[in-house]
């Protein structure tokens, strides 16, 4: 804490607020080593940060440097992950910086109750992520081979004149496209519903385009779940089950965790704008 208090001219970088006093965080911090600032039983995990690097100008400059962002984001996440081993945390966005120790304390004071409630809710729980991808070509062939109507139409196409076959094929393709959409929706709903039943809270995030995922298949579900620690085993088993069951129709299941609860930590806006 002395590192923070002595750095009168420095800034204070906030990683997370913890419900318990964290064990010394041995991973490197963003600038100085992470330390805990205690306020009425809440523990703000912070590092002293240099104005040059984390001041408004410095930060703006660094944010256009992807290598910098990558490094800092990883450290930010690692520090929070370490603290999370000792109890619930409320993780903050990268670049949450206070000018002075007094500002940090007054912010903690203002949000004390809300943070306590949130930490209470998060206690013993973890965030898990699930991304579903679909290779539409594979799903299409899979459904085409299974679907009786499509098979029937294939027969008709084979025994038709060129002109009629063309129209029938068009009709068949359209029907198959509708079926693909319907099935994708069904699979997604089923998987999401089952994981919702195994978790305390769930959220659906935006789908990421191929340009971002750099995959050859499309993301069809991007969801996050808040899971009780004693239910995590069942949650993972369910995702393994999905992998087995849905690989033939061309679905890939990508499950990651445990994460700090980044997706489940909104604070109310009532104090904002001050």
């Amino acid at each position, binding site marked *: 804490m002395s590192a923070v208090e002595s750095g009168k001219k420095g800034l204070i970088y906030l990683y997370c607020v913890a419900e318990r006093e964290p064990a010394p965080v041995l991973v490197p911090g963003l600038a100085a080593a992470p330390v805990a600032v205690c306020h009425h039983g809440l523990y703000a995990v912070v590092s002293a940060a240099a104005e040059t690097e984390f001041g408004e100008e410095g930060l703006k400059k660094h944010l256009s440097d992807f290598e910098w962002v*990558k490094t800092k984001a990883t450290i930010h996440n690692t520090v929070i992950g370490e603290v999370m081993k000792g109890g619930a945390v409320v993780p903050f966005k*990268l*670049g949450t910086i206070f000018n002075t120790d007094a*500002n*940090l304390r007054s912010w903690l004071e203002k949000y004390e109750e809300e943070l306590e409630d949130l930490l209470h809710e998060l206690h013993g729980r973890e965030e898990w992520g699930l991304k579903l991808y679909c290779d539409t070509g594979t799903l299409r062939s899979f459904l085409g081979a299974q679907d009786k109507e499509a098979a029937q139409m294939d027969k008709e196409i084979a025994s038709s004149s060129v002109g009629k076959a063309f129209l029938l094929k068009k009709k068949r393709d359209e029907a198959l496209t509708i079926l693909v959409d319907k099935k994708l929706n069904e699979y997604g709903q089923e998987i999401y519903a089952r994981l919702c039943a195994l978790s305390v809270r769930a959220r659906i995030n935006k789908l*990421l385009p191929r340009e971002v995922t750099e995959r050859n298949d499309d993301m069809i579900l991007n969801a996050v779940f808040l899971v009780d620690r004693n239910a995590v085993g069942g949650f993972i088993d369910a995702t393994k089950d999905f992998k087995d069951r849905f690989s033939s129709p061309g679905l890939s299941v990508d499950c*990651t965790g445990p994460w*700090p609860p*980044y997706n489940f930590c909104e604070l109310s806006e009532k104090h*904002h704008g001050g």
Partner: protein
Amino acid sequence: MADKVVIKSRDVTLLEVLDRVLNKGVVISGDIVISVADVDLVYLGLKVLLSSVETMEKLRGAPFSGAQEEAS
């Protein structure tokens, strides 16, 4: 770029880390915070990063298939 050794699974997890750390997490405002945002920034950067991963995978003759990281 050629001397950069990138491990595939780790870097795809990086996408998850960046998405959370930059786009999620508690945002506070008031007298204190320089708000960092920028989905565009992250995704632009990731695109560059991941393309370089893909190139490397191709060089090794293995298809780039994305994250299949099973957390246990």
